[in-house]
């Protein structure tokens, strides 16, 4: 995978608005953002109601995902371009999710909604509906999804990349600072995980840094090309963005996203936790 295959610019999207077989999808952390204004023709996926099982903590199963995309009017051979607020956190999460179910052609809008807004490009509140399809998903690709036992086994053995802010990693904060800090899980990080905050991948306007800058960022923390990699954050959305950088932009092999992330790991009984700014010992 490369930048050309996985990323499109705001300019490109503007020039291709309304193109056949192109589906724009907005996915925001603030699920009301779309309704106030969205890119013309874009449909919305709500990460809390559309993309999560509403009883268990898990994703939609294959049949549910097929029903969702069929109802939303997404076809298997469509080019899906995802974008969203908060620097594409949840759009990157949706990107990873589409890959998990084997969608062939999916891309991220570089900079997401913020870049689009800072460029003063047009947003509309028009309602968008697409004719239904018969979408067929693949079985979940677990080569890109890590579970809790994978993370415990990776301590001291694989690249563990914790992408939360330094204060969350060290245990001084329990959640990103736009959310209340009172949380039930323990604070800290997985021992031997390195802290590369997701924000280091991006410029202030939300666009990704150059491949050379990104390579340097991971070399600096001792990223080992010969080891498998797991990215994690608090609930798996910021780490989707880092997963995107490592696998899609830099072409690293065997990179998984841990969607359970700190809300799961920090609640597990008996697993090791490190506190402070250093990775800690295995």
């Amino acid at each position, binding site marked *: 995978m490369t930048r050309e295959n996985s990323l499109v610019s705001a300019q490109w999207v503007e020039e291709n608005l309304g193109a056949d077989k192109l589906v724009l999808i907005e996915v925001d952390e603030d699920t009301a953002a779309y309704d106030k204004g969205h890119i013309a023709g874009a449909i919305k996926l709500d990460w809390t109601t559309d993309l999560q099982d509403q009883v268990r903590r898990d994703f939609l199963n294959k049949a549910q995902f097929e029903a969702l995309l069929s109802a939303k009017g997404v076809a298997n051979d469509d080019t899906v371009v995802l974008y969203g607020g908060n620097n594409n956190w949840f759009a990157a999460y949706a990107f990873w999710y589409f890959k998990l179910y084997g969608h062939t052609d999916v891309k991220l809008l570089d900079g997401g909604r913020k870049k689009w807004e*800072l460029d003063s490009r047009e947003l509309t509140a028009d309602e968008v509906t697409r004719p239904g399809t018969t979408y067929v998903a693949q079985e979940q690709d677990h080569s890109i999804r890590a579970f809790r036992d994978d993370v415990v086994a990776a301590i001291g053995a694989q690249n563990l990349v914790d992408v939360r802010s330094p*204060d969350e990693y060290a245990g001084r904060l329990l959640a*990103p600072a*736009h959310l209340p*800090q009172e949380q039930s899980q323990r604070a800290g990080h997985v021992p031997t995980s390195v802290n590369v*905050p997701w924000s280091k991948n991006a410029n202030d306007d939300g666009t990704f840094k150059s491949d050379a800058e990104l390579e340097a960022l991971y070399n600096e923390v001792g990223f080992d090309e010969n080891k498998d990699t797991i990215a994690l954050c608090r609930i798996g959305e910021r780490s989707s963005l880092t997963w995107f950088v490592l696998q899609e932009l830099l072409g690293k092999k065997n990179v998984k996203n841990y969607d359970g992330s700190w809300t799961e790991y920090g609640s597990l009984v008996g697993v090791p936790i490190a506190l402070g700014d250093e990775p800690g010992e295995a």
Partner: protein
Amino acid sequence: MCGATTGGLSLAGIDVAKEAIIQGQVTRSGEPVGGAYVRLLDKSGEFTAEVPTSATGHFRFFAGDGQWTLRTLAPRAEVTDRQVVAQTGQIAEIEIALV
């Protein structure tokens, strides 16, 4: 403290005594700026969080004790940095005027 949220964002359901809150309003020429981006940087300058302002220009963070920087980005405005100190149980109120 009750007066701190006048016209701002609701604190309903949040235990203010346990949070170190930083909040405020972004304005330009005295008018509220909605849809600006306010980011919270930690004492080393590293990104910690970011929120778009509400229609009334308001924003809020739940930080930790200590020194923080608020960096504001908006269309056709210069990037504006403001220093702020947060403390658990208190609300730091910051007015940000864009130029």
